[in-house]
């Protein structure tokens, strides 16, 4: 990670620590405060929404690495909102929209006036019209709906949110009032897939780290049998395994980001593979963290279930993980048969 991104991360984490503690998220979940809106306004004010957008287009210019970092930090505190689809849409708009349209759309996104929304499960016949993003306000919707190719749509009317287990994000069905702004080329569809996979992976690594840190703190504080439970090897070893998995996932994510930024031939392999690994592992870690909390983890008031449900939704977004690995395998096999060797390590 560059020094610039490390500095940005620190400032983002500081703001989130103030605004998005466990109690604030629970108040949001209870419908007592619209934390998602408050965060979005704050994010716009601080320039976060343009973190991956080039400086020439009004952004921060931190690229995909910056976007992945932002999504990870938000997930670390289970922040509610539509940041992931908004950042994904901004990346595709920046690369594939005509200049005049691009400038206006990006300005709206960066200023926080418009949010992004994407198909939750683009290739799934049963859920092709299901969308991830804010359900109201000015929205730019990106997807291949109604059997046509990828297009960008504008929505304004509020849609009915689907009732889902994850209470930090929103799913809805494409409304009839959506107006098509432009068609996008096939490369844009591939780019959207890779960027979305990568950001989902970033969300997974962030949320897993977030609940893991809370769990380590709990193991260090909770006493039973007269000692802190973190001194029991049976629990300690599980924590160590989770720490190792997280370190590896972070490295894998960094590699996937670098591959996509370099437009490497293996980029699609890494974003798909990384999404599959990160989301399966995030579910496993969030599950074990709930178990390690014992009774207190099995309460509504505690944070564990928020993270576990968020991890589960992530696992289902984009595409089924086995399908993603099979797609990745085909890419590997093609390379192997062509006699090419050795994935380069970029990071």
């Amino acid at each position, binding site marked *: 990670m560059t020094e610039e991104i490390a500095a940005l991360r620190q400032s983002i984490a500081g703001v989130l620590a103030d605004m998005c503690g466990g109690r604030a998220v629970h108040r949001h979940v209870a419908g007592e405060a619209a934390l998602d809106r408050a965060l979005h306004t704050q994010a716009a004010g601080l320039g976060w929404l343009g973190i991956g957008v080039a400086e020439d287009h009004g952004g921060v210019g931190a690229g995909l690495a910056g976007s992945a970092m932002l999504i990870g930090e938000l997930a670390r505190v289970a922040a509610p909102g539509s940041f992931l689809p908004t950042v994904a849409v901004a990346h595709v708009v920046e690369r594939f929209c005509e200049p005049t349209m691009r400038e206006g759309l990006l300005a709206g996104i960066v200023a926080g006036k418009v949010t992004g929304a994407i198909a939750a499960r683009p290739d799934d016949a049963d859920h092709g019209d299901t969308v991830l993003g804010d359900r109201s306000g000015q929205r730019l919707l990106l997807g291949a709906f109604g059997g046509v190719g990828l297009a960008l749509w504008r929505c304004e009317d509020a849609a009915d949110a689907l009732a889902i287990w994850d209470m930090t994000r929103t799913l809805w069905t494409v409304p009839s009032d959506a107006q098509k702004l432009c068609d996008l080329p096939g490369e844009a569809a591939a780019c959207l897939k890779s960027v979305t996979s990568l950001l989902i992976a970033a969300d997974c690594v962030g949320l897993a780290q977030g609940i893991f840190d809370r769990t380590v703190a709990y193991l260090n504080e909770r006493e039973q049998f007269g000692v802190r439970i973190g001194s029991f090897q049976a629990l300690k070893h599980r924590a160590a395994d989770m720490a190792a998995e997280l370190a590896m996932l972070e490295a894998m994510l960094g590699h996937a980001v670098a591959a996509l930024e370099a437009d490497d031939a293996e980029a699609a392999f890494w974003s798909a593979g990384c999404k*599959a690994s990160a989301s399966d592992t995030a579910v496993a870690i969030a599950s074990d963290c709930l178990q390690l909390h014992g009774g207190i983890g099995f309460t509504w008031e505690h944070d564990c279930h928020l993270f576990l449900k968020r991890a589960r939704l992530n696992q289902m977004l984009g595409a089924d993980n086995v399908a993603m690995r099979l797609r990745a395998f085909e890419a590997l096999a093609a390379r192997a048969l062509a006699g090419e060797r050795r994935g380069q390590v970029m990071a």
Partner: protein
Amino acid sequence: MRRPAANDFLGAADGPEALREGMRRWLAEVLPGDWRQAYAAKSEAAYVDFQRWWLDQRRRVGIAVPGLPAEYGGAGLDFESQLIVAEELARAGAPPLEGALFMVSLTHVPATLLAWGTEAQKRTYLPGLLAGDVWCQGFSEPGAGSDLASLRTRAVRDGDHFVVDGQKTWSSWSRHARYCLLLVRTDPAAPKHKGISYLILDMASPGVEVRPIVQPTGQAEFSEVFLTEVKIPVANLIGPENEGWAVAQSTLAAERGVLAFERAERQMSFVEAFLKASLDSGTAWTRQDHAKAEFTEVYARMQGIRCLIRKLLARPHDDPSGADMLPAIIKLLATECAQHYADMQVRFGGLATQLQGHAIVCDGTVPMHDFIQSFGDTISAGSNEIMRNLIAERRLGLPRG
């Protein structure tokens, strides 16, 4: 004939790309492509001879110990160049250092002596490494495995000698070794980490007896070493008396740098070769979705581990460990990933993997051998359970049990 200087021959002086090209050219010229098959059917003695021949080939171009300073006969390659050498050796499937005859002499000995040795010790022992001196390690004891610091082999000072009595075990290749890196207790009254000293033992000394231990693979790579009133000169003390524990950390750290890197690169080469061979022959698993998905997951993990190793190696050398315990994390992940990979190959291969061929087996050729052998790595060099303790206590700050 004048021996070509390493840097001239392999192009290290002309930058990383020239060195890489030089390595590839040299490997294509000198390395028999079928060495694994050729040695699979032969005896251990033949394999030992082959390793000696290979060390000599490496020595001729200056890469026996790539980082060894020129004043001790090495090529003095910088760190980046050392990685290129390791990467290209692995990529070409050259005979591995790890688990092989010269692992300790080419890895652990230079790391230990360069950090702690006297000038006289460096001049006495380092040039011999290039000439093929085999070294072994005398660390573990029957009663001191994971709890290494409880070791009981006793050394009593007697004038200009120590007199040593005790028993060492799991000492790899000690039957062929000329010297041994030996940990002994010199102050039984001190707390266990404080009374240990680090000695160089000449394996030809009277009172040294080596008895092989056969592993579950059928091979006998390591041995027990019995020490009865063995006299070791005080001049063979590495580092200060009673501070051997600190010296031993340098020895152990050596495994976590270039050696871990080479292991990961080699593993990736095996995986890529396995995939290609499976696809070429249309093996059943390449048509099964669950198998393809599992292979992809293992491949992705391996790549993640390679990234972690590079992150570790990119650190300044005066900060080899750090509080994040990255070396322990890498050891844990890499050895279990290798075990998973071998396990997967066995399952993919079916009954055919249960037929046994040759006595001498090289890693990467026989899945069942690799699977059985993989436990050597999850147990040795600090068992993975010890790694988990280290990670939990030092990285996560959890209380000691």
